[in-house]
C-alpha cells in the first residue's frame, strides 16, 4: 500500500508548456525578471564590495547617459552593435550558425582601410566614398559567401567554417597593419588620412556619429520589412523551421542559403565600413571588438525581430557603458561589472522560459489525493 502510494505521488511541482501568453503578461514577466535581476545584483554588490547598490545603479545610468557626449556615444555604440546584429540575423533565422560575423566585419573594415590608404590621395572624395562602400560590402559578402558555398555544395559544418574564417581575417589584418604601420615596424597604422580626411564618412551638423546612426536606422527598418514581408524573408523562415518542408514546397534551399549569407556578410561588411571610415579611421585586429559574438546574443534575445533588436542592443550597450563607469568611480575591477551584466542577462534569458512554460505546483490540481 505504502509502495503504491509513493509510486503515484506527484512531485512538488511540474512544468508544462504554456499556450501563447497574452502580450502584456509576457512583458510583465520580462519586467519582473529585470527587477529580480536588479535585486540580486544589489545583494551581490553589497556582499562583495560594501557599496550602496542604489549608488552603483545611479553611477551606471550616469555613465551611459549622464552627459550629451555620453548619449551620443551610447547611440554610436548601439548603432555599431545593432548593425552587426542585423548582419547575423538573417543567417540565424535560417538556422545557419554564422559565428563568423567578427571576421566579416573585420574584412569589410580591412577593405575600407585599404581603399583609404591606397586611393586616399589619388581619387576625389565623390569617387573614393563609393569605391570604399562597394569594396567593403563585397569583401564582407565574399567572406560570408565562402562558407555558404561549402555548406550548400558539400554540407560542411558552417559553425567551424565561419569560425575559422575569423582567424584568417584577423591574420590578414595583422599582416597589413604591419605592412602599413607608422612608424615602421610598430604594427599600428594609426589614423588614416588624418590631415586630408580622405575616405572619412562626413559628419552631419557637427556630429561625427550621426551618419552611422542614420545608416543603421535605415538598415534596421529595411531588414524588418525584408524578413517580415518579402518572399525572401518567408523563405528564410521556412528553411529555418525545416529544410524538408522548404524542399517540399519547392524552395531551392541551396539558393536561399547562399543568398542569405551574401546578405549577412554584406551587412557585416557595412559594419566594418562604419567602424573604419565612420568611427576609428584606422584598423586593428580589435576593430570588431567581439561585436560579432555579442551580436548573436542580441539577435536571439530579440527573437530575430530587428525592431526588438534595438531594445536588446540598447540593454547590452547600456550595461557595458555603465560598467565602465562603475569601475572608474568605485575603483572596482572590470570583472565586477561583467558579473553584474552576466546576472542581468541571465535573468532576461531565464524569463523566456517562464513565458513559454508554466510551473504547476502540487495541490493546485484538484482531485488528487488528500
Amino acid at each position: 500500500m505504502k509502495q503504491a502510494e509513493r509510486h503515484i505521488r506527484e512531485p512538488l511541482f511540474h512544468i508544462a508548456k504554456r499556450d501563447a501568453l497574452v502580450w502584456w503578461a509576457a512583458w510583465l514577466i520580462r519586467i519582473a525578471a529585470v527587477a529580480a535581476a536588479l535585486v540580486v545584483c544589489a545583494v551581490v554588490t553589497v556582499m562583495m564590495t560594501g557599496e550602496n547598490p542604489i549608488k552603483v545603479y545611479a553611477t551606471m545610468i550616469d555613465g551611459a547617459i549622464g552627459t550629451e557626449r555620453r548619449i551620443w556615444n551610447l547611440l554610436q555604440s548601439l548603432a555599431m552593435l545593432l548593425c552587426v546584429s542585423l548582419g547575423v540575423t538573417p543567417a540565424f533565422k535560417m538556422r545557419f550558425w554564422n559565428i563568423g560575423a567578427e571576421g566579416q566585419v573585420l574584412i569589410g573594415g580591412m577593405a575600407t582601410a585599404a581603399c583609404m590608404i591606397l586611393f586616399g590621395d589619388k581619387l576625389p572624395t565623390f569617387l573614393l566614398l563609393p569605391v570604399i562602400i562597394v569594396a567593403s560590402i563585397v569583401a564582407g559578402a565574399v567572406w560570408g559567401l565562402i562558407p555558404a558555398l561549402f555548406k550548400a555544395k558539400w554540407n560542411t559544418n558552417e559553425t567551424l567554417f565561419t569560425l575559422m574564417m575569423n582567424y584568417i581575417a584577423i591574420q590578414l589584418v595583422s599582416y597589413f597593419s604591419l605592412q602599413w604601420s607608422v612608424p615602421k615596424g610598430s604594427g599600428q597604422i594609426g589614423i588614416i588620412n588624418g590631415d586630408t580626411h580622405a575616405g572619412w564618412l562626413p559628419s552631419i551638423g557637427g556630429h561625427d556619429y550621426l551618419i552611422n546612426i542614420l545608416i543603421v536606422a535605415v538598415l534596421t527598418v529595411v531588414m524588418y520589412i525584408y524578413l517580415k514581408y518579402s518572399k525572401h524573408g518567408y523563405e528564410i523562415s521556412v528553411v529555418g523551421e525545416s529544410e524538408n518542408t522548404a524542399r517540399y514546397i519547392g524552395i531551392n534551399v541551396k539558393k536561399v542559403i547562399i543568398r542569405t549569407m551574401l546578405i549577412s556578410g554584406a551587412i557585416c561588411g557595412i559594419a566594418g565600413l562604419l567602424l573604419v571610415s565612420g568611427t576609428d579611421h584606422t584598423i586593428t585586429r580589435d576593430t570588431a571588438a567581439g561585436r560579432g559574438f555579442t551580436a548573436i546574443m542580441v539577435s536571439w534575445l530579440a527573437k530575430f525581430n530587428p525592431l526588438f533588436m534595438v531594445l536588446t542592443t540598447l540593454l547590452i550597450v547600456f550595461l557595458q557603458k555603465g560598467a565602465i563607469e562603475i569601475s572608474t568611480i568605485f575603483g572596482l575591477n572590470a570583472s565586477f561589472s561583467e558579473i553584474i551584466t552576466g546576472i542581468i542577462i541571465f535573468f532576461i534569458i531565464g524569463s523566456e522560459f517562464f513565458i513559454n512554460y508554466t510551473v504547476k505546483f502540487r495541490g493546485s490540481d484538484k482531485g488528487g489525493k488528500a
Partner: protein
Amino acid sequence: MKKLTAVLLCLAMLFAFAGCGSAKTGSDASDGETLKVGFIYLHDENSTYDKNFIDAAKAACDKMGVEYVEKKNIPESSECTEAALDLADRGCDLIFADSFGHETFLAQAAEEYPEVMFCHATGTTAHTSDLKNFHNAFASIYEGRYLAGVAAGMKLNEMIESGKITADKAKMGYVGAFTYAEVISGYTSFYLGAKSVCPSVTMEVQFTGSWYDETAEKEAATSLINNGCVLISQHADSMGAPTACENANVPNVSYNGSTVEACPNTFIISSRINWEPYFEYIIGCVKDGKEIDKDWTGTLATGSVVITDVNEKAAAAGTAEKLEEVKGKLEDGSLHVFDVSTFTVTVKDDLNKNAKVDGDGHLTSYMADVDTDADYTPDTEAVKDGYFHESEYRSAPYFDIQIDGITLSNTKF
C-alpha cells in the same frame, strides 16, 4: 499594435531612468580647486606594462595632492578619444594615456580641448605636431637594458667558468613584440651590455607580433630554449617568457618590474621605466602654469630609468657592484651604450640601407626616421662623436639597425 505599445512602454521606462540619471550629475561639477588628472590605460593591473603606470600615477597624485581619475581597459580606437573627452568633460586639467596605439586618438581629443594638457607615453609625433597641448614622453630605457645586459653577461661568464657551457655556446634568447625601433633598440642595448663583459655572446630574437600575448610569448621563450639559448630576456608585457624560464630553469632577465615572486629561481634582474618623475613633472607644470616639454626624455639621472634589486639566488656573484660601476660611467658620459666601436654592422640592399660603415664594419653614419611619416623618410643623422645618439632627437627610440651577432628567427612581425 500590441508590439508597438510594448516598445513604447519600454522607451518610456528608459526615459524615466534617463531622468534620474541626468538629475544626479548636475551636482558633481568640478569645484575648480584641486587639480584633476585623468589617466587612460590600455589594460588593468594584470598587465605588467599597465601596472607600472598605474602604481606610478597613484603615487605621483598622492604626493602632489591632486585628484586621480582613471579609465582602464581602453582600446586603441576611437574609444580612447571618447575616454579622453569624457575625462575632459569631467573637469580634468591634465590627461595621460599609456599605450603607443593611443597616440593618434589622444591627439584628436587634444584638438577639441585646447586648454587641457594631454600627455602620452612612448609616442613619436608630438615634436612635429602643431598641437600646443599634446606631449610625448619616454625614457632612455636602453641604458637600463644595457645594465640588465651586463648582469646577463656576468651570468654567462659564470656558466662558462663553471664548465656548464663553453664560451662559443654563450647564446641568449630574446622575445620581442614587433620589429619596431623601440624593441630593436631594446634588444640591441641588452646584447651590447652582455657583450661588454662576455665577448663571445650571440643572441637569437623571436617576435610575437603582439605587445601582450601570454601564450605566444611562452612558446617563443620555450622554442628559444630548445634552440640552445641559455638565458632569456623579453620585451613584451605578459608573464609568458618569465614563466617559461622558471619552468625550464633557465635564467631570465625581465622587464617592466621584478618577476621574482613568480620566478624565484631564475629571475636575475629587471629594468623598467619609473614614470613617477614624469608624472610629478607634468603635474607640477600644470600647477604652476608652466609649459610642458613637447617631448620629454627620462634618464638615469631623473630617476626614470631604474633597475630592480639583483636576485642573488640566480645572478652571478658581484653583479650588483659591477652594475653600480657601469651605471656611474653611463651617468658621467664616459660610456655610451651605442658606442660604434663595440659592434659591427652589415650593409646590404635589403638590410640597414640607411647606414654607412667603414672597412671594419663599424658605423660611420646613420640616417634615422625621427620625424614620423608614412614613407619612413630618413631625416636625421644619428651617429656623431663615435656613438649613436639614441633618444636625443626624440624621446621614443629610433635605433633600428640590425647589428652583427644577433639573429632574427622570424621577422614577419
